[in-house]
């Protein structure tokens, strides 16, 4: 038995034509839930696609579960231990949740019919879709469809779970349910999820990685990320001149994030403040 990080990605570069989506992104993650934060177009989805073996990087060093996804045999071994929920997961017309998850189970090499159906029923129950498993997917709500996607990703208890914005478009109750599922999934395996929602990261992630413009800006614990913004968030009656980001809070005062002036009324930063401080500050040198 060897102990090595599940994901070792160093200097990953990937371009689409002239557009460079990843410009040397790095990510090391092990057991637990890792949140991937970044603005739109930062390269989160491209990085996750590389981690899901769907997209080969142009250059860089990538090892998943101790194996090289560039080698077909090792890639197959990775895929056998991988669960992936893409950002825009589609479902074949006419399929029920059971049909779809069963179809995926076959493609995950569950060849014994009885064992496969047992596993399909298990993951469908896990995501709470037992009652609608024989209804057409197209008749289900957006949240239920996302849960169908999560169910297929959970098939076979994969060692690595890659989830691209799993909570987008969900109502607060469904988001909480998803958080609970993902948090539970993170026990004993590696879960990496990309999101715009810092609340989700604060709630369930033991590690957070921030990427912007295809590069890793920060990698560490949520507490470490919050620590970066200590002394950089203050409340004022006016928008601060040194603020990178500022908005008017419900008490009528401005919450400013940036270089706080001397004597400013400093407040405790949240994870969102820290994230905004990080991505809003040009040439940040806070990468871990």
């Amino acid at each position, binding site marked *: 038995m060897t102990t090595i990080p599940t994901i070792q990605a160093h200097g990953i570069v990937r371009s689409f034509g002239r557009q460079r989506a990843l410009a040397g992104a790095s990510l090391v993650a092990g057991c637990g839930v890792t949140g991937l934060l970044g603005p739109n177009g930062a390269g989160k989805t491209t990085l996750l696609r590389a981690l899901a073996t769907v997209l080969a990087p142009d250059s860089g060093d990538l090892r998943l579960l101790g194996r090289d996804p560039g080698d077909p045999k090792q890639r197959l071994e990775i895929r056998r231990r991988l669960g992936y929920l893409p950002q825009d997961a589609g479902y*074949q017309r006419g399929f029920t949740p059971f049909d779809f998850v*069963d179809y995926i189970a*076959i493609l995950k090499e569950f060849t014994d019919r009885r064992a496969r159906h047992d596993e399909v029923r298990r993951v469908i129950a896990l995501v709470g879709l037992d009652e609608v498993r024989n209804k057409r997917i197209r008749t289900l709500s957006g949240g239920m469809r996302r849960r169908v996607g999560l169910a297929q990703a959970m098939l076979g208890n994969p060692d690595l779970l890659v989830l691209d914005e799993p909570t987008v478009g969900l109502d607060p109750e469904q988001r909480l349910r998803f958080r609970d599922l993902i948090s539970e999934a993170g026990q004993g*395996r590696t879960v990496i999820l990309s999101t715009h929602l810092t609340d989700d990261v604060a709630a369930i992630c033991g590690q957070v990685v921030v990427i912007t413009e295809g590069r890793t800006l920060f990698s560490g614990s949520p507490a470490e990320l919050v620590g970066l913004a200590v002394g950089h968030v203050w409340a004022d009656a006016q928008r601060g001149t040194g603020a990178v980001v500022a908005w008017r809070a419900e008490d009528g005062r401005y919450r400013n994030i940036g270089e706080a002036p001397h004597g400013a009324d400093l407040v405790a930063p949240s994870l969102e403040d820290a994230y905004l401080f990080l991505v809003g500050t040009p040439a940040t040198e806070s990468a871990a």
Partner: protein
Amino acid sequence: MTAVVAQSRGGDVATRRQFGAIGALARVEGRRLILHPAYLGVGGYLVIAGTADVTQGISQITRHGVSEILNILFAIFVPLIALFPASLVASSARRAGAEETLAALPVSQRGRSAALLLACLVPATIASAAVAVGWWLDSTAASTGDHPATLYGTPLLYLGVGALAVAAARWLPWPGVALALVVGLWSWVGVVVQQDNAFAVLTAPYLVLSDTAKNVSIIGFSDAWHTAYLAGLVALACVAALYRDDLRRMVAAGVPVGTVTLICAVAQLP
């Protein structure tokens, strides 16, 4: 942060598991094919139309009559319709936007194509059984009997259109391709059968029967070589469907199969 890396799950088992998955998928895809609305719609129409014909006295239920109907339906019309369900099933993941999910799974697109090609055996078997029943009915009737080439040619027609549909779904990922293929095949056959050129007539992708061929230019052609030529076309379509993402293997498999098919195309000539 570190994770415990579990033991690797064996090398030679991989092949068996992949084949097992393709077999299981073929069964599911076969069921999807025969339960496709295109087949169910045509089946329903045929039952209604046939019942109406019989009740109105247009058709008579005789051994020869039933045999003719079975032949016309399953050896001529249904093979063309068979292209639609195969094409729609083959392209369903792409049309649904599910390709991204499937791309991260152990069974690749090639495995899925292989499963679908195997699944085409289901409608081919059903149609062949129907044609065989027709052939048996006709052989027991006081008539000349159908040419036996219909028996071994029918599965080739179904496998051929199935393979063509899968290849088209992989190479031409656009809406309306199935319809364009059907129109193209129909036009191709329709035009060449009237030509006075044996090579053109016999290389069209359809089953020519020596006892019904009215075109004088092909009198005396070889049934066996013609069937082998059709089998070659089916194999070429399978190669195109399977090796969409591997040009080197496609050439390696396609060149010998293409050469043999060409030899058969020439050998069938009168």
